């Protein structure tokens, strides 16, 4: 077998393997079926290695910054929830009010907060739950709701389809959200899962895994936020699995607010039943390297998905938003809109793969990728991949890269707006098409405010670590008083 990984990659794989053996020796409380899956996933990861540019899906995104970093693999998994004052950082010394400034506060939301991969009871607010929903942490559900957990994790063939990062997650996950909505229940309350990496002096790794199941005819809103509050390199390797029953409707949002040193890999896999509807929107506002992959399998007739994404990148940030939409049944619809705003030496990637299986007649698929280039040093790569094995399908794609339109700039100036103000408005206007797809009003206006801060003067400003990061209680109160 040809070695598929670089030297650094091999070293990294070996380090992960050794750490996994160590971890496994301590995970004796887990069910046997799960330990088996973890072993199988790790073995598969080891033989597969990290993806390289030779993999079609990873042509433009190199994981070298991740594979060449030595993370504290043991620290990420060691021991129990860190106590207050622990240098690893913890739920104990994260001031909740400052957390609210750093992430969106959705009124009345069911909020589950995970700090360094551990569920934080103190920062979460889950009760009283509305009727028709079961929700909690995966670590707990493993014992209280094992059938749901197994239906996702032990699904036949799951590991065969998984990519390297997803396999690593399968081997390593510690916690995440499990949510099950009863058939027919239309949940007004949004669910907000917040994953925080916090702590000084450690190179933390986390593999959150969330399982979302919507029964037939039910409806829910699920928001995921990722926040890295550390100046050290950190890695979050998240997997979210979603199953939508017939006629179910899910609004899914992912917001990446990770700090300047953060690496984030996130995969969302959705399986859609007949007539179900998924609307998913991912906004990347921070992080050094982000790779998001939305995989959707439209398994039954007339299922519909709308996938959208916005990356706002400056400095040397890199964000890859990729999609795999699998039309496996007739008359299903997919719509994709991905945009990036690039400044400095930032780089964005959009890989849009659409597969239309034999017999999936009446498929209607459209994808578009547009990038706003604010500087000469930026690069935007766009790769549509349409694989069509059925007749009578409508599949198309569009792509456009451009700068701020001079005629629009002059129009705004001719009404008295200065250069900076005009550019800011036009840049925000470019983003708005994606934000308009965010149907939760508080989330949308929060994102709009965040973008306005990030884009003032019509430039993308370097991602600052959120202020909560440095906030010791003393510093926080001093700041509030000034």
């Amino acid at each position: 077998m040809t070695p598929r990984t670089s030297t650094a990659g091999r070293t990294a794989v070996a380090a992960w393997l050794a750490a996994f053996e160590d971890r496994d020796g301590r995970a004796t409380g887990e069910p046997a079926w799960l330990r088996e899956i973890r072993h199988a996933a790790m073995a598969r990861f080891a033989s597969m290695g990290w993806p390289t540019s030779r993999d079609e899906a990873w042509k433009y995104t190199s994981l070298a910054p991740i594979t060449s970093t030595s993370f504290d693999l043991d620290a990420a998994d060691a021991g129990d929830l860190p106590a207050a004052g622990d240098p690893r950082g913890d739920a104990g010394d994260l001031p909740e009010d400052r957390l609210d400034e750093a992430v969106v506060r959705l009124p009345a939301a069911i909020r589950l907060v995970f700090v360094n991969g551990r569920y934080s009871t103190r920062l979460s607010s889950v009760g009283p739950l509305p009727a028709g929903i079961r929700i909690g942490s995966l670590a707990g559900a493993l014992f209280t709701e094992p059938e749901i957990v197994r239906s996702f994790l032990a699904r036949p063939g799951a590991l065969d389809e998984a990519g390297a990062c997803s396999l690593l997650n399968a081997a390593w996950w510690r916690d995440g959200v499990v949510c099950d909505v009863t058939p027919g229940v239309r949940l007004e309350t949004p669910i907000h899962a917040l994953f925080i990496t916090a702590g000084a002096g450690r190179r933390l790794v986390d593999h959150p895994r969330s399982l979302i199941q919507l029964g037939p005819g039910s409806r829910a809103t699920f928001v995921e936020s990722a926040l890295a509050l550390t100046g050290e390199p950190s890695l979050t390797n998240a997997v979210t699995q979603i199953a939508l029953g017939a006629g179910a409707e899910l609004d899914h949002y992912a917001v990446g607010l990770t700090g300047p040193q953060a690496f984030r890999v996130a995969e969302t896999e959705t399986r859609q039943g007949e007539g179900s509807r998924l609307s998913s929107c991912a906004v990347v506002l921070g992080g050094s390297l982000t790779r998001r992959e939305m995989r959707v399998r439209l398994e039954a007739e007339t299922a519909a998905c709308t996938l959208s994404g916005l990356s706002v990148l400056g400095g040397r940030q890199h964000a890859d938003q990729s999609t795999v939409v699998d039309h496996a049944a007739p008359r299903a619809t997919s719509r994709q809109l991905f945009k990036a705003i690039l400044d400095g030496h930032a780089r964005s990637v959009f890989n849009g793969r659409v597969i239309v299986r034999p017999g999936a007649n009446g498929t209607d698929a459209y994808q578009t990728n547009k990038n706003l280039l604010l500087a000469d040093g930026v690069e935007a790569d766009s790769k549509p991949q349409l694989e069509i094995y059925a007749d009578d399908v409508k599949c198309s794609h569009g792509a456009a890269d451009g700068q701020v339109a001079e005629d629009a700039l002059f129009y705004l100036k001719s009404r008295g707006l200065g250069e900076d103000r005009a550019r800011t408005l036009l840049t925000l206007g470019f983003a708005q098409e994606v934000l308009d797809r965010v149907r939760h009003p508080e989330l949308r206006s929060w994102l709009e405010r965040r973008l306005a801060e990030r884009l003032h003067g019509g430039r993308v400003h370097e991602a600052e670590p959120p202020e909560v990061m440095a906030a010791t209680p003393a510093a926080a109160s001093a700041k509030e008083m000034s």
Partner: protein
Amino acid sequence: MLSIRNLWAGVEGKTILKGVDLEVAAGEVHAVMGPNGSGKSTLAQVLAGHPGYIVTAGEVRYQGQDLLAMPPEVRAREGVFLAFQYPVEIPGVANAQFLKAAVNEVRAHRGQEELDAVEFLALLKEKLALVDMDPSFTSRPVNEGFSGGEKKRNEILQMALLEPRLAILDETDSGLDIDALITVARGINRLRRPDNAIVLVTHYQRLLGHVEPDRVHVLVGGRIVRSGDRELAHELEARGYEWIEPAPEASAR
């Protein structure tokens, strides 16, 4: 108010204005007429400061200041307004958001306090009624998906909100049905005051039936070849532009 002397200008290396002279005093309405390609729109764009148009000779004084030295946003804040022949569509920017930004930029420049959201909405409501526009237009993106007539009304709405000292209207009447034409004319007449001036750039006499000009100029081949009172507009309507010979000594006023 506005004094143009021997203005030469062009776009993409092509000279279009070849020595325009024009004097517009406060309180006056001037019509600049002419056949297609005579340089009417170029004159309007040059006055507003479009960066694509290069002035090669001449000068423009506005309220005693060197207009050509001002960047376009400063001209706007100083009270120059151009109603575009082809208003630009700006996806993703709500009309109200844009209008509020513009009004407050101009107000700040005039030393007036910025309007808050409530005050601005009250002002906007009043001006919307003036141009007979549905309030739903304010939440839509600027000009996007607007019909030709809606775009022109939106220009007049902006003019009404910004209250310019010098308004230049570039073919604002083209493509309007009679109702829209009357609405647009009402908006223009509302601006007609002893301390304001209006320049109507138009191909047809149509609008001039509703906004009576004090002076009419004919622009041919990049120069003003004939000036007169409103009778000249009627004559042009009846006889076309062919009978006017570009006279080398012709000048405005």
